[in-house]
């Protein structure tokens, strides 16, 4: 029960911030895919840069556990490209579609219905995927610092520097 309440409160906070950051709009998502408006990249990358410092700090202190999804080339690359095609058509991703509906952009409701159908279709296809695409190139649960063989505290500052440089460039270009 407490877990469900945590989920609801966390979602409300996140939805509030997504709306304030103007990330929920079709025009913003397509704007990024058309390389005209980097609002969603600014939002995502800011969240990721703050998150990586906090999560790795807490993990080093033994307070949290990492939860890494396996790098299965077939699934991640093929699935990722298919997701991208659907995302470009819909203009909302699974999380933001609910948020877009919350701010009244109700074309998202058709996307939400479509996503429920897509999930049902995948459930039908899963036994086939499991013995085909999901067996192609499984590298396990790997992180970038593990692959490079360096400390994550070397990788994180590099990401932050790169991110800040990108932000500077966005603002200079007015993106």
């Amino acid at each position: 029960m407490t877990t469900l309440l945590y989920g609801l409160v966390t979602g409300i906070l996140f939805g509030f911030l997504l709306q304030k950051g103007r990330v929920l709009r079709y025009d913003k998502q397509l704007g990024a895919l058309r390389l005209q408006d980097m609002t969603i990249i600014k939002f995502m990358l800011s969240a990721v840069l703050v998150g990586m410092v906090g999560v790795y700090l807490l993990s080093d202190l033994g307070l949290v556990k990492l939860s890494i999804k396996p790098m299965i080339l077939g699934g991640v690359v093929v699935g990722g490209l298919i997701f991208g095609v659907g995302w470009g058509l819909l203009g909302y991703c699974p999380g933001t579609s609910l948020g877009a509906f919350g701010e009244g952009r109700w074309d998202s409701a058709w996307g939400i219905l479509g996503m429920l159908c897509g999930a049902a279709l995948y459930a039908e296809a899963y036994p086939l995927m499991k013995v085909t695409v999901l067996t192609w190139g499984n590298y396990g649960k790997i992180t970038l610092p593990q692959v490079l063989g360096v400390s994550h505290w070397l990788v994180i500052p590099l990401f932050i520097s790169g991110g800040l440089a990108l932000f500077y460039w966005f603002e200079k270009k007015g993106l």
Partner: protein
Amino acid sequence: MNDNDGGAWSPYLAGALSGLVSICSVWLAGKYFGASTTFVRSAGMVEQAVDPERVAAMPYFMKEVPMIDWQWMFVVGIFIGALIASTTSGSFRWQALPEMWQTRFGPVRWKRWLVAFIGGTIGMFGARLADGCPSGHGLSGSMQLAVSGFVALVCFFAGGMIVARLLYGGGDQR
């Protein structure tokens, strides 16, 4: 782009605060952000109402059991949070067609609905195959420096950029 509808925050600020919320979530509840599994559980719940025995025998619904869990409530919360933020700032708008879409494809509603529905179907199939969406892979994966998160993000954008170009053409016209 038209942002003058009240209450907008800098995306850097809103994003950084979301990063803090996500850290707290991992710390207090042990939960990383994600959204697409919820659509599987929900589809399973709908199918259960029709044919529970069939659902009980499907491997994917054994893996992702149709039930209301932390993430399901999180996704509902996103809806409520966006509703609160937009109605309290005057930026809530009951809108059938996005402006960019209408400028390019005109005011015919069913075209947008059809494309949104098909896009949603394709997108969710891909997200489940990839085992995550921009929340699970993009935010949670890349903040943990997971290789799968970075590769997924690149593929998400590659697929999306190709479609955006097919729909809207190249060049800078808005």
